[in-house]
């Protein structure tokens, strides 16, 4: 009978664990007016801002981080969702959330005063917090500065056959760039561009933005597409320093206009239980203090006027962003993904 006793003990243990403090803790978080965030950004990148907010206001911020599925979670949780705020790293997720009907419009003088009109949804369903430019990283050794492509369109030029690396075409950053291409040039030309770019790839799309710069360092390709802040992040990392040293950043133009930019942003959820504190947090994130932290720590472009860019960003050159409204980018995303599938970009 010893085995059955062991079994009973195990059942008891499980029951005890089920009622452990972990469950109680998370219930409490919902009740005390704390702000709950569903974040597509890694917590270690945003935690410093949340900590600063908590120090200033006394309001605690709770986070669930996942790279996928949070909008779907909000949809299912419906009006009882404990989440107050969605945090994203690109425009696509913000518009997805709005389209899914899980956001609400919010508007305060501070928010609309600080954030330029082009970087927020007109009814206040979402707000941009920082800008990130999708730039070129070009090999110092193998491409003279004068020969480097000046525009995204040039990446499809047969000159660069076998010399370009990018991450997966289905990644939100690539999708947004393709969507901007469609918005400027129309579907047909955008598709030609994608095919041309695909034909120039040195290898099957793989890895993240940093991995492409690494591939340049290793001689696999000469040009890669990547977000601007990775340059700073790589320079800070002991191992990756050499990767960043092997390239120079180039700010290409789109349709002769400016460099394609995306935003990291936030949206208040439709069911937000703690609206008041959530607005406080949203406003705090647009304050000079928080904007400066973004700029200094993550090398992103602050959206608040007058907040200085980090020294490194300034040294990389001046950003002239594409003036295309982000709404247009969001609108063309489904088409962009279809084109990416049609040209078999990832195969």
């Amino acid at each position, binding site marked *: 009978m010893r*085995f*059955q006793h062991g*079994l009973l003990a195990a*059942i008891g*243990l*499980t029951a005890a*664990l*089920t009622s452990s403090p*972990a469950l109680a803790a*998370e219930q409490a*978080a919902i009740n005390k007016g704390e702000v*709950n965030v569903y974040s597509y950004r*890694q917590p*270690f990148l945003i935690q410093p801002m949340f900590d600063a907010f908590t120090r200033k206001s006394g309001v605690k911020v*709770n*986070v*669930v*981080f*996942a*790279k*996928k*599925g*949070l*909008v*779907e*979670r909000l949809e*299912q*949780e*419906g*009006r*009882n969702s*404990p989440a107050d705020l969605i945090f994203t790293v690109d425009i696509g997720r913000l518009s*997805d959330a709005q*389209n*899914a009907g899980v956001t609400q419009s919010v508007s305060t003088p501070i928010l609309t005063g600080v954030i330029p009109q082009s970087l927020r949804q007109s009814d206040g369903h979402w707000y941009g917090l920082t800008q990130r430019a999708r730039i070129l990283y070009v090999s110092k050794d193998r491409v003279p500065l004068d020969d480097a492509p000046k525009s995204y369109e040039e990446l499809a030029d047969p000159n660069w056959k076998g010399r370009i690396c990018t991450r*997966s075409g*289905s990644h*939100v950053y690539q*999708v947004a760039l393709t969507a901007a291409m469609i918005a400027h040039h129309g579907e047909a030309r955008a598709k030609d561009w994608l095919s041309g770019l695909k034909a120039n790839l040195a290898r*099957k*799309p*793989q*890895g*993240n933005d*940093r*991995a492409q710069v*690494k591939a340049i*360092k*290793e*001689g*696999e390709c000469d040009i890669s597409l990547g977000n601007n802040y990775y340059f700073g992040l790589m320079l800070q*990392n002991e191992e990756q320093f050499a990767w960043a040293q092997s390239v120079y950043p180039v700010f290409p133009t789109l349709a002769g206009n400016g460099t394609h930019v995306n935003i990291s942003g936030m949206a208040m959820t439709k069911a937000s239980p703690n609206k008041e504190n959530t607005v406080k947090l949203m406003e705090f994130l647009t304050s000079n203090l928080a904007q400066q932290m973004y700029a200094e720590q993550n090398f992103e472009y602050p959206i608040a006027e007058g907040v200085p860019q980090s020294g490194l960003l300034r040294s990389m050159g001046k950003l002239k962003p594409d003036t295309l409204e982000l709404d247009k980018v969001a609108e063309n995303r*489904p088409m962009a*993904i*279809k084109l990416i*599938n*049609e040209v*078999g970009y*990832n*195969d």
Partner: protein
Amino acid sequence: MTPRKHQPVVGQARPHKGRAWILGGSVMAVIVASPLLAIAWIALFPSENIWPHLASTILPRHSWNTLLLMIGNGIGVFIIGSSTAWLVATSDFPGRRIFEWALLLPLAVPAYIVAFVYTDILEFAGPVQGLLRDIFGWQTKRDYWFPEIRSMGGANFVMSFVLYPYVYLLARAAFREQSASVLEASRTLGRGAWKTFFTVALPLSRPAIVVGTALALMETLADFGTVDYFAVNTLTVSVFDVWFGMGNAGGAAQIALVMLAFVVVLVSLERIGRRDRRYHNTSTRHTSSRFQLLGARRWLATILCGLPILIGFLIPAGVLTRHAIVFFDESWNAAFFGFARNSLMLATMAAAVALAIAVFLAYGRRLSNPFFGMLSRIALLGYAVPGAVLAVGVLIPFATLDNAVDGLMRDWFGVSTGLILSGTVFALVFAYVVRFLAVGFGAVEASLGKIQPSMDMAARSLGAGPSRTLWRIHLPMIRGSLIAAATIVFVDSMKELPATLILRPFNFDTLATHVYQFASDELLEQSALSALTIVIAGIVPVILLSRAITNVQSQRRGAPSIGAIPTLTPAVPAAGAGD
């Protein structure tokens, strides 16, 4: 008592009691299957029909890749798992006793971590290619050819060496259980060790090997981390792209149903594999003498068994250990203990619940009819569903239930109950159970099947009901398999990542999510301690598992025809007396 026609059905003694058991089992099966049914529902009613686009673009290519990956992994796990199992089970060579359990160790290492580690080692900047460049004076990638680790071949390599223990575990048991007389007869009739292996042992162990391979392939099908990292575009990748990229749940669910076709093939294979199982052990005089390998062959066997352990465990664990030491000071803190506690808690609960349900369903099948059998099969499909898809599948019934309860409470009493189950540890445990039930169920069902129905009948004729028979007779007899089942569910739950990310409560990290946060930014080193802890936490139960199985086997060995009779004898009168 109306006897049924075909196989001996054991639920006849007291039909009403058996029926309650089956009803309970059916309810349980439906609950476990609810996330899968939710996904099927979405697939049938998509918001926008994207099927023509998918069928003309990514689907053929990704299906083909999936097929290739499964064939490659299938061959890989079959060769590694069955060859090592054969050597360990039937031969004697240096280190055999260690290999017996050490061959299970790769089970403790998450595939995505092995993928990271081998990319570090084998990529251009890694030590292997660096050494080659030093020797031959090459400069850039264009100067020489080296197999690309981020490829189909790389995925086959990594996954085969991580998943083979499923085959090894079951094949070893099967080889051990083969009655010695059969093998000895083969040898006395003049067949060598090789011929005996191919013509007698392998066909006899087919059920176990097929089941093990099917499990490994279900894992393959559900994997996202490894294939994503290696840029192998499988159907799982397209499910993710369509759902989380295009926001088209319907299209994604439709692809998931295509994946289901692969599963159906696997399950049928498994069933075919098991078909003749029942008649195998006419004599349970197990292999007691081993082939004595001589000379160079002994060491060859040692190397053959050592290689999978080296590749699947020692190298990855070694690399993690090195990183963990370098970053020890930043990693060893209160937060780390929190992650470890959460992981252990979740995995323990998942193992216990999955085991309980597995026993319930398996016993229900023993008592009942084909309809229940089909129902319980559906409940097992979660194993082949990618974690993130399953997570959304779990959200749907949970949130629906929560919101319905909340709505009623608001209407009737004017109070809101909010979300009771969604976003709690409970939802996570449920997801793990749905995902890993198949593993536990397979082990329990297989060993229940080995108990002669005459046992049930004897107990029942002495007055014990179905529950009592299970508790006093079956459970003690199959305890080895129970431990095995719980262990595998525990280890798998420790490693689970995508569903955990989506379903977890606020401020809640497990070791796996903590590792992911950094690893997804190519900063694995900083979370190596957590990764190593997942591995270590997996080793202990894996070793226990191996010992438990060996003990059960050594107890059975030498016992007359039905090995477990000694445990049974005192149990039956007690059961009768108490009823």
